[in-house]
């Protein structure tokens, strides 16, 4: 069976980080800090999510003089739905695990 796309822990971590501030535009370095992902993992994920239409991006002028414009990202409506679906799945799993743990011996 072919693996389902966007199921990796790294992708979920990135989607969760983006969903924490759904309206804010976030740049790569900030996302790297938030998710603890290295650039070598982060950028292929950003590229793939952007290709799949889960992420929108734009260039913004730098706040510091002499620095280049920065590329920033946020989730699209489809991206938010995907991130929320993962969150609800995680929640269901947590509830189920809790019930199992509380089962009388």
């Amino acid at each position: 069976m072919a693996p389902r796309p966007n199921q990796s822990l790294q992708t979920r971590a990135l989607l969760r980080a983006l969903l924490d501030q759904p309206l804010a535009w976030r740049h790569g370095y900030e996302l790297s800090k938030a998710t603890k992902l290295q650039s070598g993992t982060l950028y292929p994920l950003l590229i793939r999510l952007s290709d799949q239409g889960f992420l929108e991006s734009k260039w913004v002028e730098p706040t510091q003089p002499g620095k280049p414009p920065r590329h920033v990202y946020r989730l699209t409506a489809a991206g938010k739905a995907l991130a929320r679906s993962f969150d609800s799945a995680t929640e269901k799993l947590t509830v189920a695990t809790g019930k199992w743990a509380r089962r009388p011996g």
Partner: protein
Amino acid sequence: MSLRRRLAHRLMDHACAVMPPNRREWAAAMRAEFAMIPDGPEKFAWACGCVWACYQERINPMDVFLKSLVRAAVVWLWPFGADLSHALSMATDPRAHVYVTKFLWYVSGDLSVMYAGIFVSLFVCELLMARFWASPKRIGPKTLVRAAAVWLWPLGKGVILVSNFATSTDPRVPAYLATFVWHVCRDLSIFYAAIFIPLLICELLIAHLWHSRSALPA
């Protein structure tokens, strides 16, 4: 400028150069973030990660690995067949069981080393071709390059033998050397052809049967 900082800048330049043209915007995004990171180990790590990310966009390492594995197995069948026929010819000897045990021990060791050597050569060759020669459908010339990469192994061995022979103090060396070089060249050419033909058949099969799951534009 410190060595690490200089190296980080070089790596970032390399990452941007490696990125396929349709992904240049992403390379610029990585470079912009790189410019914002303060000097230190983090900047260097960021540059290394960017090189890895750009290579992932340029080539599919798993695809290269699997194809190299198949190619190495195909080339490996040739010496394996030769050794197997030798083992079978010895099996008629009354002391065969002693010989065969020893023989299989040596053969398995040698073949494993040879297989690893073939695989590593082909893998490096594949990475270089993916980086510098991305044009698809060049089966003939690319097979020639792959066969040459594997051929370097026996060629190296032949060169060492010839140079050992040449440094000998025997007065008849010049006469022997000419014959010896001729034999080495002849054997190596046969070996080269023996690599090339199975690889070419393998290439044609790969081209027709292999569909990469996540091929990215080069």
